[in-house]
């Protein structure tokens, strides 16, 4: 028997029922909201314009300062500029950094050290590796990697340095720690009864310049380090200690270490003078976790003048729900953290980067998170109220829709999770941040700056 009629009956029946359901969907859409995805007439009906998002922002806005060149709070929306609120916009926002960069540009022997905090966006030295190279190139400085933790989840794919640690290793971190463990900026501290460490700085292979390789550790009883068959025991009385492992032209450091009750942090490869940019990535955090870093460690670092600038780059992990628009809780949680840093490190400058773009699927289309503006506002307010400079990272990379565009473009710049930049995107982002830092630096030194390679030339070099 020929069943071709059955095909027609089936198709016509299902189409008619489907069409009728679509026509009368208003009667049941409340009980079955997902029907809108298969509504046959949704594409051809006149749509009501969606109501604009009402931001729930409870934190009060600061009163504007009445001056032409002074930066008002509302300027936080500006892209490409590092802002110091209520300050002269013609002056650099990062004054001390700017001054030290000037000395460096005049071939003075100074060391500038920057701590760059972030989440998985900078894991594997993404963004910071390129930014470090850009800054070191621009000021004609030696290329070194800076801080590398003894162990990290991203060690395998980090190109800028390689570290292998063989032996027993107990780790405390932001998420899991015993008692009052002394965590470093990396969010980790390590203990070992015998560890063989092989470290290699890949940031400038084949270089003939000397670089210092330091082992960093915290407060405990003591540590024993074995280099070239000689074992030396070092005290660990201070909250922050370091041992020079080597000072030669080699980019490697091999040693054995025993540190049962003293927290080990990592290795820092750096020049005697120049620019050091330390990557402190910790997956999945928002910055609030930094409260677990002891105040005494911050004070000690301040005392030794270890860091010139500390940068906080967080935000994407705060947007874990697509419809969140209120980040007051973040303001309340992050404010004491920033205060703690500021109070204990009065000689250090700080910079808050806003969140970057991230997207969610709304009505089957990936779009920038609806709460992003509100989060950036909250972060700007944190910067303002703690008297820290602010950089609108979100607007600087392109603002709304950027991450979707970058993830969906033929030459992908971001991953399909619509959060993370890939290596190409990271390079691009590093260039954008670099430009902002140089613009800020040049505000004060346009006249005195010795001729250096242009931003464009440095970018070209890094692209190669």
């Amino acid at each position, binding site marked *: 028997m020929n069943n071709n009629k059955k095909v027609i009956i089936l198709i016509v029946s299902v189409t008619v029922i489907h069409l009728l359901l679509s026509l009368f969907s208003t009667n049941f859409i409340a009980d079955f909201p997902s029907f809108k995805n298969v509504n046959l007439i949704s594409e051809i009906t006149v749509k009501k314009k969606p109501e604009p998002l009402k931001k729930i922002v409870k934190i009060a806005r600061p009163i504007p300062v009445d001056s032409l060149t002074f930066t008002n709070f509302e300027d936080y929306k500006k892209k490409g500029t590092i802002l110091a609120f209520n300050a002269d916009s013609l002056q650099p926002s990062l004054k001390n950094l700017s001054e030290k960069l000037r000395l460096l540009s005049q071939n003075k022997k100074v060391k500038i050290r920057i701590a760059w905090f972030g989440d998985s966006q900078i894991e594997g030295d993404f963004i910071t590796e390129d930014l470090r190279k850009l800054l070191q190139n621009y000021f004609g400085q030696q290329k070194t990697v800076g801080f590398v933790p003894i162990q990290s989840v991203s060690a395998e794919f980090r190109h800028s340095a390689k570290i292998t640690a063989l032996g027993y290793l107990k780790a405390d971190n932001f998420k899991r720690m015993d008692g009052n463990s002394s965590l470093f900026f990396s969010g980790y501290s390590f203990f070992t009864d015998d560890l063989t460490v092989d470290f290699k700085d890949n940031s400038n292979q084949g270089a003939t310049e000397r670089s210092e390789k330091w082992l960093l550790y915290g407060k405990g009883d003591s540590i024993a380090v074995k280099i070239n068959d000689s074992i030396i025991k070092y005290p660990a009385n201070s909250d922050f200690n370091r041992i020079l492992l080597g000072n030669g032209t080699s980019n490697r450091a091999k040693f054995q270490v025993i540190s049962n009750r003293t927290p080990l942090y990592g290795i820092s490869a750096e020049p005697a003078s120049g620019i050091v940019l330390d990557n402190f990535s910790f997956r999945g955090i928002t910055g609030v976790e930094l409260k677990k870093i002891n105040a005494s460690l911050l004070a000690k670092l301040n005392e030794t003048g270890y860091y010139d600038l500390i940068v906080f780059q967080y935000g994407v992990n705060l947007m874990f729900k697509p419809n969140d628009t209120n980040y007051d809780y973040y303001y309340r949680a992050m404010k004491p953290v920033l205060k703690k840093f500021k109070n204990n490190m009065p000689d250090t400058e700080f910079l808050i980067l806003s969140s970057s773009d991230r997207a969610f699927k709304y009505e089957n289309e990936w779009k920038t998170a609806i709460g992003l503006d509100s989060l950036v506002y909250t972060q700007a307010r944190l910067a303002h109220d703690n008297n820290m400079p602010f950089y609108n990272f979100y607007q600087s990379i392109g603002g709304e829709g950027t991450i979707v565009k970058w993830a969906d473009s033929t030459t992908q710049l971001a*991953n399909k999770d619509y959060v*993370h930049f890939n290596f190409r995107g990271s390079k691009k982002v590093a260039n954008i941040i670099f430009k902002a830092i140089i613009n800020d630096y040049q505000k004060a030194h346009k006249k005195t700056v010795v001729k250096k390679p242009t931003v464009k030339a440095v970018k070209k070099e890094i692209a190669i």
Partner: protein
Amino acid sequence: MINVDWNSVLHQFLYDPKNPLLFNSGFFVYFFFFFIICYYFFRRNFVARAIVLTLFSLYFFYKASGFFVGLVIVSAVIDYGLSILIYKKRNKTIKKALLILCIVFNLTLLFYFKYTNFFIELVNSFGTVKFNPIHILLPIGISFYTFENLSYAIDVYRGEIKPEKSIVNYLLFLSFFPKLVMGPIVRAKDFIPQLKQEYYVSQLDFSKGFYLIISGLIKKLIISDYITLNLVDYIFDGPNLHNGFECLIALYGYAVVIYCDFSGYSDVAIGISKWLGITIPPNFLSPYQSVSISEFWRRWHISLSSWLRDYLYIPLGGNKKGKFRTNLNLFLTMLIGGFWHGASWNFIIWGSVHGLGLIVNKFWTKFFGKIKLMPKCMSNIIYGLITFHFVCFCWIFFKASSLDIALTFINQIAFNFSFEGAGAFVSNYKFPIIMIVIGLIMHLLPDRWSTIFIRRQRRFPIVYHIAVLLLFIALYSYFKSAESVLPIYLQF
């Protein structure tokens, strides 16, 4: 009261690059509704029926790929004309020259659209001269209809078939909408004769078509899309953010995704064809049940592997020119097959590794094939697992967006394997993981079960079919709006 936006109505009939026509587009429901009525109406007039099918197919092509529809028409006209000339000419040299002309024409089109930028990058990598990449869009289905054109002209040249007299039938052979976007690759000698037969759908054809369409849509739109969006893409985009265990789960996930996506589309195409009275041979036969890599290629994308065998491997000499040449032919066939899938080194590596796998498989069978070390069921499980994992290994190159990503992915599994955070990972991705398990279980069910079910389904009333199709629409609507599973590294 429904307020119709007539501008949108008109817009629906035009090609929209952002929303190309697919089986799951809302527009396809209208398209198929009107098409099936017209097709049924002209069922007794073969010429009119073929014209209806061709016009709807070309319109489908237009809605899916815009004015590239012109390319398929031009291609059909030229191949149609050349094939007639090849058939008519008595002089062998002229026949051969015409065949070469036909091959060159088809491959030039394919190379221009698919491989130009790959070769520009290759030349640029040598660094002597630099060319800017050209902005070229890839016409939908060009890889498939190029192979269909070639097989047709070669069959005519070999005297295996007579050229088709009706250009409409030939155009329909190339543009037949169910298989247009993702195959299967059909052969003219199988397809065109069916256009001259009565529109007949047996009870079994109807049941089989229904089963294939529903199961194909579930595989493609529910299982494959869900796992891709909620697990596989996250991990393949940034394997460095995940440990070996997580990468391995993503790899198993991708094995299910690629199978469900590809075979799901083929099943829908074959099922719709069944309902139109046209039989297209199966394209996938539970390939992960294979116990050797050569068996895998007899079960995976059969229309492509048989095409490569008949029009590449055998013309290269097949297994008739000694052991070395046989292995070389095998390797080259797989390498070219890999390159056919896409213009990148990853596809070349994917094809090459499969080629090497086939060679090793041949040696293994030769030396150890007759030795029985364990019971057959046991050896089948072990060889099946080895084959599956080899295929999975190759999928890394197939899926990764660059060689760098592929190598990182392998590195994570090989040297960074850890169960740390496995609990949190499984808990976060429980739904995609459940989908992977469902996909694998469905795949491992014996084929005869579906055959038995299809036979039983023949007797079910039409109401059952209507209810199942409506249920599928409801299920699809749910999964289309299911809240995305967020990447785990944002949450712990």
